[in-house]
């Protein structure tokens, strides 16, 4: 499985990571070598096998849907320099 430069560009956009034009070639080689290698999984017979997402075998707990946490706006905002009036600020989204 080899990835073209255009495919890498598309994945990079989906990942919201800027990749410089001159690095695309090297990156597509490196990613392709990983994908080539994982290709060996196609050999495994997985008929009638259920996917395993987690090894946890105890019942996941449920709790009442009620507020148990919160009410500390300043703490939440303490790690940004981009806050105004208790909100985060970002570049303009709507013209």
């Amino acid at each position, binding site marked *: 499985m080899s990835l073209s430069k255009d495919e890498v560009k598309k994945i*990079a956009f989906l990942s919201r*990571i800027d990749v410089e034009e001159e690095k695309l070639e090297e*990156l597509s080689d490196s990613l392709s*070598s990983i994908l080539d290698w994982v290709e060996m999984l196609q050999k495994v017979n997985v008929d009638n096998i259920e996917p395993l*997402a987690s090894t946890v075998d105890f019942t996941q707990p449920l709790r009442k849907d009620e507020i148990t946490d919160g009410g500390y706006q300043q703490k939440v905002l303490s790690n940004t320099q981009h806050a105004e009036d208790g909100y985060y600020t970002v570049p303009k989204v709507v013209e």
Partner: protein
Amino acid sequence: MTEFSKLTIKEALKGLEKKEFSAVELTQQSIAAFKANSDLNTVICDNFEEALKEAQLSDEKRAKGEPLGSMESIPIGIKDLFATKGLQTTAASHILEGFKPEYESFVTAKLKKEGAINVAKLNLDQFAMGSANLTSYFGASINPWQGPNGEKLVPGGSSGGSSAAVAAGLVLAATGTDTGGSIRQPAAYTGIVGLKPTYGRCSRWGIIAYASSLDQAGPMTKNVEDAAIMLGAMAGHDKMDSTSAPYDVPDFTSFLNQDIRGMKIGIPKEYQIEGMNPEIKAEWEKGAALLKEQGAEIIDISLPHTEYALPTYYIIAPAEASANLARYDGVRYGLREEGDSLDDMYAKTRSKGFGEEVQKRILIGTYVLSAGFYDAYYIRAQKVRRLIKQDFEKAFEKVDAILTPTAPSSAFSVENAPKDPVTMYLNDIFTVPVNLAGLPAISIPSGLDSKGLPLGLQLIGKAFDEANLLKIAKAVENAANFTAIPHRLR
């Protein structure tokens, strides 16, 4: 008093009780050792001032006869992947440089409650992605062991700052996290003990996530007994982590030094990989012989899907990472690079803030989760994961634990680290299957190779059976009698 660099947790607890030294003295020695070995680059952010204050309080507690924790006054290091309140937490990344959490992780809070003193936040591979501590934004951490010609060696990874700091005697112990071998492989590379508990044994709350279905925190210590003490101080149920096991934590130390006669130890034939380093094979055989001498029964077993574990891991872990790391967008914390639009800001921030290896894994993860490829890659990998887990379940019908090498080689030099990703990934060939199956495993230093570098043996146990795992590990430790010390301490 035993030299500080050689002191174990157990010895320190005794010395403190007998008033041979104080918590402040221990902490001062740890700080001095960190300063004298700053070239090993084990520290991302120190906590020296705060640690001394805590040590003072710990001494006062002891003087007043107040109840003491199981790790009271013990100076430790914390892998910089655990959120520590008010203390910079970076995951060795630029994107989190300067980030000061408003809360403390469950594991570090529990250690603190048990009296342990956090002296420094330790270096690691960026977002715990790596096997050599070479992907840290803050530079490589260096192994206190040296190559035959004085070469600088990697301390393993991702918990490389932790392994180097413990091996060099800068702290008595350190926390690590293990997603595919990140506690056990660095432990093997530095001649210390590293324990990855069963998935769910230690809460993941407040640990910066890499691959959530695989990540698990554990102790990195100078010996097995210390691992048992420290695991007890880290483990326990936490309602903030829905995958945290609601099981009691036994006193792991009470299982040590018990007879292992009649216990069944499996040797999986598939771990005899093609082109296996003969020294690694010989060490493995030595381990089996040592166990046999102590009355254990050695049984050949088969784990047929072993060869598929690494490729399975390199689909599942990047997939989970791409989702977990989506949160670093420059909006709420960490680095922000200005952009013309919101998307532009995201892309510039993430491009500048993530290192190469992290970007690569996010891209792979995004690809295998994308429409059209999801079934062929991700779902298939999850199916193979079940087969790998079933292999272990079948094996554990016949055996109490499984013995393998920890890593395919001893520590390699910083200069000659593999450039090709797949070769680098092969470092985790013996450790990754354990994470996919969610089992506990421990690496014990057992001997030196012809280069004079430590080798580790891995024991894999049944889920939530760390007690027996530690018991067998102690037997291996006693028999192997590994006493070599790193070049840095000679």
